[in-house]
């Protein structure tokens, strides 16, 4: 049952081959038996899931046409869920139960989906290995001594281990695509503004974007159909025409122009990963696509630019966690300053503190022009690189991550090495472009991800190109769990 895709589950629910309660129960049991060794979930909402499943079964009996009706999914613990603990992977919010739902969560409730629980993540989405979570490491289902990637490591591991057929996630610098790559699944980060950020706990507001993690591109299309919406509660949400992402999945890619940036095949790329990506290029050629070499000359500036802008925004975004209204509060504060210092000192982990400090420094008097202001100018150059390239090509192709999953602790003492994990994904966030990662091979029995980057609001094209690849390959069907 758990090897089925969302498309198949939906079809079988409608064909009455099983009920929503049965499939939900099946996933809940699977979580119970497998998650203790993976730690993909922070909270499992069993009672609520079964109640939602029963409701969905009633809807299905009445002939619901909603494709996600009765389909169980998981939410990254960054999305506010009314009445359900929402921690953002932090001690700071280890006691926080929101009084409202994120728009993304609301959209899935309206679509009839069932929520299995909340998935583990790097603290406040800051990390590329899921090692910064207050709730412990998530293990990569392909190699439990390795990281699942981050920050959406819980969602990635849950989908890869078939603990959920799909999950929501967020991506600020690669937090959907990199863990999707390391866990061998499909993950899409839509165009900035395509999905509402209301109720999604902010890390870096100008970069954060919600997306989906699934086994297949087709499932991503189904999930994104429900997730994408215009939301007047988010001023940065774009009122762009909505489309059915499943409608164009089967379009031919004959004549499609794929740009391959030479900067994405430089020093630091693992040879096995490079070989797998080059094999993928050959598959696309065999499908009739035209491969064009392109250049994104400012690529080398993406990581340093990101590590000024993202920390700067987070330094302000995380100020609200002050121990006054909600979240962790230190015991017996002596005075206001003590309340602030100890509540924040105790509530935040090392990486979060590091980024708040870096951000506060970059914004401080005398440094603003040299750091923040300059980073914004470089951000524009990086964006212009893409705009230029998209005049000639339909999609850009490259590796998602420089290497397959690495061992726990391998990079946790070296922030810069960790930051370079996102070297190929960060530029798309700075430009606001959509990107996705699909599995394209195995190196040492660990998955390799292929990244496709599209033009603004070209999610349908990306999913089409990914789906065509998956029609001729079977990497997306590989199951890491020995059943």
């Amino acid at each position, binding site marked *: 049952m758990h090897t089925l895709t969302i498309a198949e589950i939906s079809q079988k629910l409608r064909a009455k081959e099983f009920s929503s309660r049965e499939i939900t129960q099946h996933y809940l049991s699977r979580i119970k038996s497998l998650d203790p060794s993976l730690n993909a979930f922070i909270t499992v909402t069993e009672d609520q899931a079964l109640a939602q499943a029963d409701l969905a079964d009633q809807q299905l009996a009445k002939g619901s046409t909603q494709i996600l009706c009765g389909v169980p999914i998981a939410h990254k613990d960054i999305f506010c869920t009314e009445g359900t603990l929402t921690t953002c992977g932090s001690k700071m919010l280890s006691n*926080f139960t929101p009084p409202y739902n994120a728009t993304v969560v609301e959209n899935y409730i309206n679509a009839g989906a069932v929520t299995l629980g909340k998935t583990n993540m790097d603290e406040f989405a800051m990390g590329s290995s899921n090692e910064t979570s207050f709730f412990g490491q998530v293990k990569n289902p392909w190699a439990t001594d390795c990281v699942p990637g981050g920050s959406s490591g819980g969602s990635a591991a849950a989908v890869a281990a078939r603990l959920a057929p799909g999950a929501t996630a967020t991506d600020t610098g690669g937090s959907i695509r990199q863990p999707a790559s390391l866990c061998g699944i499909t993950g899409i980060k839509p165009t900035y503004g395509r999905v509402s950020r209301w109720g999604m706990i902010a890390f870096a507001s100008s970069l954060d974007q919600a997306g989906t993690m699934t086994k297949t591109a087709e499932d991503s299309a189904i999930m994104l159909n429900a997730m994408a919406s215009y939301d007047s509660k988010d*001023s940065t949400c774009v009122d762009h025409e909505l489309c059915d992402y499943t409608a164009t999945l089967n379009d031919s890619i004959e004549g499609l122009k794929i740009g391959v940036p030479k900067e994405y095949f430089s020093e630091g790329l693992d040879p096995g990963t490079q070989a797998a990506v080059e094999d993928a290029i050959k598959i696309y050629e065999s499908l009739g696509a035209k491969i064009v070499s392109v250049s994104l000359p400012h690529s080398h500036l993406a990581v340093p630019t990101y590590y000024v802008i993202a920390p700067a925004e987070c*330094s*302000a975004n995380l100020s609200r966690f002050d121990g006054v209204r909600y979240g962790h509060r230190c015991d017996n504060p002596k005075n206001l300053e003590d309340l*602030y210092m100890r509540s924040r000192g105790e509530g935040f982990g090392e990486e979060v503190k590091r980024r708040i400090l870096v951000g506060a420094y970059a914004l401080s008097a005398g440094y603003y022009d040299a750091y*923040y202001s300059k980073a914004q100018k470089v951000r524009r150059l990086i964006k212009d690189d893409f705009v230029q390239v998209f005049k000639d090509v339909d999609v850009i192709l490259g590796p998602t991550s420089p290497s397959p999953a690495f061992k726990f602790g391998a990079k946790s003492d070296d922030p810069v090495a960790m930051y370079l994990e996102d070297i190929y994904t960060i530029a798309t966030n700075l430009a606001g472009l959509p990107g996705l990662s699909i599995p394209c091979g195995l190196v040492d029995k660990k998955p390799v991800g292929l990244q496709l980057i599209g033009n603004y609001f070209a999610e349908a094209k990306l999913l089409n190109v990914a789906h065509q690849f998956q029609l001729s390959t079977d990497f997306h069907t590989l199951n890491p769990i020995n059943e």
Partner: protein
Amino acid sequence: MEWETVIGLEVHVQLATQSKIFSGSSTTFGASPNTQASLVDLAMPGTLPVPNEQAFRYAIMFGLSTNAEICKRSVFERKNYFYPDLPKGYQTTQLAEPIVNGGYLDITLENGKQKRIRIHHAHLEEDAGKSLHDDYQGMSGIDLNRAGTPLIEIVSEPDMRNAEEAIAFARSLHSIVTSIGICDGRMAQGSMRFDVNISVRPKGQEELGTRTETKNLNSFRFMDKCIEQEVERQINEIELGNKIAQETRLYDGDTHTAKSMRSKEEANDYRYFPCPDLLPVMIDDDYIEDLRQNLPELPEARKTRYEQDFGLSSYDAEILSSDRKMAAYFEATHTVSKDAKLSANWIMGELSARLNTDDISVEESKVPAEQLGKLILRIIDTTLSSKTGKIAFDHLWNGANDVDEVIEKEGLKPTDSSDLEAMVDSIIEANPKQVDNYRSAEPDKRKKMVGFFVGQVMKASKGKANPQQLNSILQNKLDSE
């Protein structure tokens, strides 16, 4: 040594929008603590701001009223600091790209001279909540009802040289924002708050002295006191050979003293940067033009109209035009009475006195403008004298609905001529000495002496005698021996 004072003002004006600047919560004053605080105002994780268009409209109207440039592009920034009544840990405000740039006001001084005070800029921002330090033993309470109330902060150039100019500028701003309806002007409720930047320098010196900023002034009287004290303090310090420390001072309206709040060294580095949750706001020419066309009459234009169309004195015109609601009352009274001078006199006299005594605003007046207009009509047609007019006004103030009913019910109609003659006869009979004096006086002195008899008859008629009629009867009888 002769000293010159240099004053600049920062004025916070609460905009009279229905809802807050970035959330849908109501902005009504005086609700129970935290009942007007939404998820956004509480800075719940994951919440986002959505700008209130009305706040922009009001800010643009202010700019159009002060000869300023309306910026086609404006940007909200985050001003970062920690305080419990600032739930997000930053205030959303404008810095580098405010909505209103430049502008000026011409103020009129007591000596009749005009002076131009330049405005540096005006920007939109959100208000903070309130910390309640008194009510909770050992702890402070936080009320976030005010958090997110839209403000414009108006920053003047340091163009004022004394308290009179500063207050004239502040009053003029008050008059404008209430006239165009963007602020309710209730200073006691904090609808307008003033921060005063003060420095002194030897007369003739170009370079500015070190300034202090005194915050939290919410009345013109406090501003006057504060400027007087601070100027004196600074001059004393300098004359004692001390330096003025650049600092922020807080005014206490109860003790009328200001204390140092923080020095320049202790000042926060606010780490401003553009708010990534809000896009730059772009405003096009048509939008501005539309607001310009529909801008309510400004106090200055109204004053000129009162002088030219109604023949009011500059003083009367100033008082009646500076407050939009007062002006509306005056015009409604005038529509009925058709007599501008009498209307002005009654409003600035009897009505203002009553409003003051009852401590209410003109919109809460217990005598509607229509009734006052009608009362003035009855004075013009001599049904009422100024004395019975006041009696009628008193009844209207205390609940009567209609001036004609009051005249009827209270018997305020003038005494008719036969009754009046009888009264005059009895007064003459009762005061033979005064009559003799009158009759033996030179004719040009008699005019003055007739006042005694007028008073006596008025008293006897309870003020209902028609003065002109009475005068002619009296003169007839007294002069005819």
